[in-house]
């Protein structure tokens, strides 16, 4: 996908997405015969997130990852010594940093740059040429409110996204337990680790996509294009997954304790994925 003017591109692709989404119900019944056909046609197209172009956004975009990395490195010793207390105390800081990043850089849910999915067809003027890339300039649902016509107010959206993030945390906790995290011991460790994962990897997506089912389906199917948010999600998950690798080794290092390696993998993977996803290397590309 060439890097063209995001506004015009969004209009044309969004229509294609709508068409595909409309045609999908009829195709869905014939599963037995057409399973091998490319499923991409049936899932709504999602556009990569276009960051805001304000100077503040540019600064925040680079400052927040640097701050996150610095925070993690600075608190690493304390994390190894007392994981629960450190994760607990750093969680609000991380959340605040992510919120600042979202407010300054990310397009709000339903806005043009957030890449309307199939569902955005219901929204008025998908791809209206008058839209600018600025946040909140277009109509559309906020994080929680999808009532058309109401102007989304970024802080509210951010707050709602945070609530969604909190709601998602228990599911990530469950996922970690399923992967083999201790169930009966260390609940605080695992839960806080899940919270960090949610705040880092999921919060920006909630801010950008709200509760747009089609967008989330595309994200889940890994059919979303790479951008800051999706790259961060993929990187964070892959990093956390790989973070489990050093745990069994018999090196007797303090940093091998649960969940330090997971958290380290998560931060490294998230920051790398976000940087790559937002860079020219991967932006807009798909799996």
């Amino acid at each position, binding site marked *: 996908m060439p890097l063209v003017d995001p506004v015009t591109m969004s209009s044309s692709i969004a229509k294609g997405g709508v068409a595909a989404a409309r045609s*999908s119900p009829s*195709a*869905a*019944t014939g*599963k*037995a*015969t*057409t*399973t*091998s056909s490319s*499923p*991409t*046609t*049936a*899932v709504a197209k999602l556009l990569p997130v276009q960051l805001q172009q304000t100077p503040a956004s540019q600064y925040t975009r680079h400052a927040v990852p640097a701050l996150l990395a610095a925070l993690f490195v600075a608190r690493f010793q304390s994390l190894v010594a007392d994981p629960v207390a450190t994760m607990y105390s750093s969680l609000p800081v991380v959340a605040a940093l992510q919120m600042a990043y979202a407010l300054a850089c990310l397009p709000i849910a339903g806005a043009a740059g957030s890449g309307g999915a199939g569902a955005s067809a219901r929204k008025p003027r998908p791809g209206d040429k008058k839209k600018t890339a600025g946040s909140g300039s277009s109509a559309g649902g906020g994080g929680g409110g999808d009532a058309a016509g109401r102007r989304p107010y970024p802080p509210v959206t951010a707050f709602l996204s945070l609530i969604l993030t909190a709601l998602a945390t228990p599911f990530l906790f469950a*996922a970690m*337990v*399923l*992967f*083999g995290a201790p169930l009966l011991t260390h609940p605080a460790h695992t839960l806080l680790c899940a919270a960090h994962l949610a705040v880092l990897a999921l919060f920006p997506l909630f801010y950008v996509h709200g509760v747009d089912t089609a967008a989330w*389906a*595309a994200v*889940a*199917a*890994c*059919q979303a294009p790479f951008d800051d948010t999706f790259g961060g999600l993929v990187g964070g998950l892959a990093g956390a*997954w790989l973070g*489990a690798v050093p745990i*069994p*080794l*018999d090196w007797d290092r303090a940093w091998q304790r649960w969940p330090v390696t997971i958290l380290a993998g998560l931060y490294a993977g998230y920051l790398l994925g976000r940087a790559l996803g937002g860079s020219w290397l991967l932006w807009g590309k798909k799996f």
Partner: protein
Amino acid sequence: MPKPKTAPPIATPTPPTPTPSKRRKAPKSESEYAAISAQFDAAKSAKAEEDALRDAEREKASVLEWQREALESARKASYEARWLWTVGVWAWMLCIHVVGIGLFTGGFLLARLVLDDKSSCDAPPTLNSTTRRGLDILGPWAGKGTVEGGCWHPKTFDRAVIVLIDALRYDFTVPVDDNAAFHNAFPFMYDTSLASPNNAFLRPFIADPPTATMQRLKGLTTGTLPTFIDLGSSFAGTAIEEDNLLMQFRDAGKRIVHLGDDTWDSLFPGYFEANLSRPYDSFNVRDLHTVDDGVIEHIFPLMRRKGDWDVLIGHCLGVDHAGHRYGPEHVEMTKKLRQMDTFIRDLAATMDEKTVLIVMGDHGMDEKGDHGGESDDEVEAALWMYSPKPVFGRTDPQFISPPATAKLRPVNQIDLVPTLALLLGIPIPFNNLGRPIEEAFAGPTGKAWNNLAAAERTTAAGIQRYQASYSAARGIEQASVPGSPADLWTQAEALVSGSNKRDWAAVYSAFATYQQENLKRFKSLWARFDLTNMILGIAIMALGVITLLVYVASGGGDDDTAVDDPELDRAEKSLQMQGITADEQASASTSIDKRIVTAALVGAVPVFLGGVVQSLVSGASDWYRGAGVAVLTSIVAVLVALFRAEEFVFKIMPRTFWGWLAVVFTLSQSIGFASNSYTIWEDSILLFFVTTFGFVTALSAFRLPSLPDRYLSIYHSILFVLLGRVASFSKLCREEQMPYCTSTYYASATSSTSAPWQLAIPFLIFLILPTIVKAYLTPTRSYEGLAPVWIGYVFRTGLFLSAAYWALDAADNGNWVQGLPEKMFRNISVYTAQIVLGLAFVAGTTAFIWAPPCVSIITAALKPGKAQVVVLGHANAHGARYLFLPLNFLAACFLLSKPMGGGALGIMMWQILSLLEILDLNSLTTSPIGPIILAVLGNFHFFKTGHQATLSSIQWDSAFIPLFNLRYPWSPVVVALNTFAGQILATVAVPLVVLWKINPASKGVLDRVSRALGTFVAFFAVESLATMAWAGWLRRHLMLFRVFSPRFMTAAIVLLIVDVVGIAVTLTGVRCNTLAISDVFGWAE
């Protein structure tokens, strides 16, 4: 079987209803047709011209019928031929694996036969050896032949204090001119040896590898060379059962007290005076002081109570732990050595004249402070003997000063065994290969050559006796060419008996030469890795994996698309009915199977025969290497044969995401086997993979276009993951996982019985599993035919009886019901178990062979006035019927696993069913990921049924579930079914990946099953290859005998079992299934 199908099938395009497919066939319709046609004939018989027409038509019909039958039987014959070729390929694969594993094992796992013979006090070996009877160098002494006077040699001491300082390297004890932290800190032993040579001597003390404490203790007490496998009566236990010093002490009525390292307790259970001994945990390497302080604290009070014991063993671990933790170059090591110096100094001061003090290291340590291998630093320990009574001597004044390095005048560690035995007057253990240490028998002047010669000859006679027994037991011929032990023995005996003027020094050295030559022979027999064989084995396994991958890649092709096209099949059939022979049917893959088998035989047979002939001619017994070379040439021949047809190099690379996932799961685990940690925690890693797969399929489900499919797929993925996590609560931890693991498999960590609540698990499985299986069959209407009876009643009964077995067993063990006749519970439970196995294997196999397809044929009126025959269960005809076979095996394994294991196996079956749905919904039935995940599941449930890759986790008691006593070959089969239930069940379930939800018209089923089996076996073959390569590479690793070797053995046995079950059960089962389906629905293959 006569075909009911008469008219050409009507082409009714099937409306959306997924399951029933219309086919004109029903047993009923045949009789109807006959009746109608009879009426028809009768009514129209008058009309001649129509009659003629009729005849012509009938003739045509019968010709058609005849052609059709001929085609069917031709297709059947072709199928059976193809099946045989496929089995041929797999038999060849089995040969590759057997030869590869056999060669590697022959070079790697050094086995020594343990002889049960014991030495006894009144039968010295000099009496019944090949020498002249009654010839004795020393003549009679007081108390000869008794423990009081000395059994085989006059005794010198009454008591012994043995202090073992773990990892006491020789250079720690001698002056060295440098400032290393580990030098010059322990001078006492050197100083005493120099100052009072008649009271003490210090010599290098060379360990035989492996330099691990347990193996060393075996060597130090039995006098033999421990190998990895000591083939004795008890394979599982760690206790030493062959003749050894402690056993001789005990049998002579001597009281043994032990302080320190608890390894002694597991090697010599029940040997020690319980109220005086103090064992300490030996595994906490971080703790430098507890064991040493305990030994020091308790040894001095005992020194004041010398009447309470005869042999006192103290085992200090601090030096070893300091080495492991810090390495030798550390101030803690200096402190430790100084502490030992003081300790030995104080201890020597408490000795009396009737007591000998022996201080020794069991091995050394390398420069990092670790040990286990055979480097010089690791094998060079120190030995110091001390007595206030001046008994020790030197045959040469130069020997007074202890050797400056361990390279000079070393003694072998096994030499301690005859030395200590003769000094204390007990018989030398039967298996001893060592010789008496010179200083201990040379007398204070160093001139007691006759004493030395007597000790040396007695020991040598013992060795000679042992060698004769061992050769007889192993069937080894003893050649008496010059320089052989037999020849040296004869020469030495001639010196003793020959002339009157006997030169005792010459006699002594002649017997010493005999001992050394003999030891050399045994070392080469037991303690050397045969690198050629190991490399040959690894090469064969590696090429075998490549061949397997090529084989998998060579199958498939484009026939998948033709499978579900009835029109094409019909056209093809009619073509064939018009005279084209069935041989045309032979697909490309058949000829591949055929070509492989032919090429393999061409490549193997001449070389193998040549090897056999060559070894016969040359007299060397290395025909097995000929087999290895033969396998190599046959693989090469096959690869060359296939290479002409296929560009396989590109085909074996995975091309999809799922293919890569399969590669990641397989390879990452195999690479991880290079690390002891990843081997130890394999069960957690497998859970991680199972969960990863489930999550990926759940995400992948979002790509499905149909919403119901999407939800179903997500549901099954989550179910798959959840079940895996539930099963993971069943754990049997291995020692190395402590303290981060809690065993739940048994009632407690120290028992091997189930807790009462665990007995409920089999009953729970009995209640729900048949219903669950039914739930997976009903969506395709496949719960028809024999299925309700077999799954609903027979399978359920088997599960119930198994659950009842475990309840009865627990009642029997716990004596829950008092006052019953003895063995009543035991009898009932064994017969119950036999009934279950009879149901599963005898009745189950019969049912599986004869069962009709799981379909029901009904007549439905879809359109008014036109009855239509509907076949319920048509869409899953293959899979539903084949499912009986895994269920039968599940019933058997369920019985043979403990209650927790039975629960895990029930969960495994459920996971397999969910996996089949996931694969079907995501169109992954031809992807390698299906068989690979099955293999991962199989391994995962190996751990969840209470096993680990260690010898000690084998549940030997399972042999007695269906039997009262050991019976061959059934007992090993039962233990194998218990141990490898997970992998066996997975192997039997492999065809389901292909067969699930395909209808009878599918083609190339055998081909695809064989390729799926190939992928499945490839997983285990790669694991075998990897564990083999790592075990060979890490053959000097500290953990070799604890971690790497057992994992290799597990992988090798699993691979062979999977191969055998794959041929005997899986492929055979598919053949039975296809025959049964095709007899009813016609031959599509």
